[in-house]
């Protein structure tokens, strides 16, 4: 596609529910990233995919968070048993995977846990 697409753009959920966030990267980009942006906290790295593999998932805050990528394309970030502290904007980015190349970001999913 023309850019990185994320859905939904907004998600309101109740504490304890599971949520799935979707990212559709730019076609042909092998690298895919998930970051979390909280108010005043900058961008917090969550997980990095190269193809369908996740060589670095060190940023996932707890075992309630998981992510997968299929077909070297779409990725899903799943948060189980959501907590209020999970409220944030979840950003997906993709790149050609060359290391020094720029990231292309999606518009993010605003997650609100009530």
């Amino acid at each position, binding site marked *: 596609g023309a*850019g*990185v697409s994320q859905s939904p753009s907004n998600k309101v959920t109740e504490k304890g529910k599971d949520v799935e966030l979707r990212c559709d990267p730019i076609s042909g980009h092998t*690298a895919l*990233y998930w*970051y979390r942006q909280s108010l*005043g*906290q*900058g*961008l917090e*790295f969550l997980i*990095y995919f*190269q193809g369908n593999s996740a060589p*670095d998932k060190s940023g996932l805050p707890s075992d309630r968070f998981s992510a997968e990528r299929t077909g070297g394309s779409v990725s899903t970030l799943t948060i189980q048993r959501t907590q209020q502290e999970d409220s944030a904007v979840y*950003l997906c*980015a993709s*790149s050609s*995977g060359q*290391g*020094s190349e*720029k*990231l292309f*970001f*999606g*518009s*993010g999913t605003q997650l609100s846990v009530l």
Partner: protein
Amino acid sequence: AQSVSQHNHHVILSEAASLELGCNYSYGGTVNLFWYVQYPGQHLQLLLKYFSGDPLVKGIKGFEAEFIKSKFSFNLRKPSVQWSDTAEYFCAVNKGGSYIPTFGRGTSLIVHP
């Protein structure tokens, strides 16, 4: 662990004022350096990047940044800001060989017309 520090969290300027946003990082080896910008209601986009060569790099919209290795810094500058520069600015650093940028907390810039 690598960290990226942006010293100014909120900056308010009048149009035509000069801008300098600080960025320092903690990693001592080879680095790739980036400044990203997020305009209101838009997604993050690259402003400029440095990975080798001339330490003074020029980006879009009249922005430039200087890599000073001895100071572990990559400050962003613009001689004369415009109202349309109102945005959130993020510095990011990759260790050489790493594919994962570490971002600073961001600086919110408001430019009054």
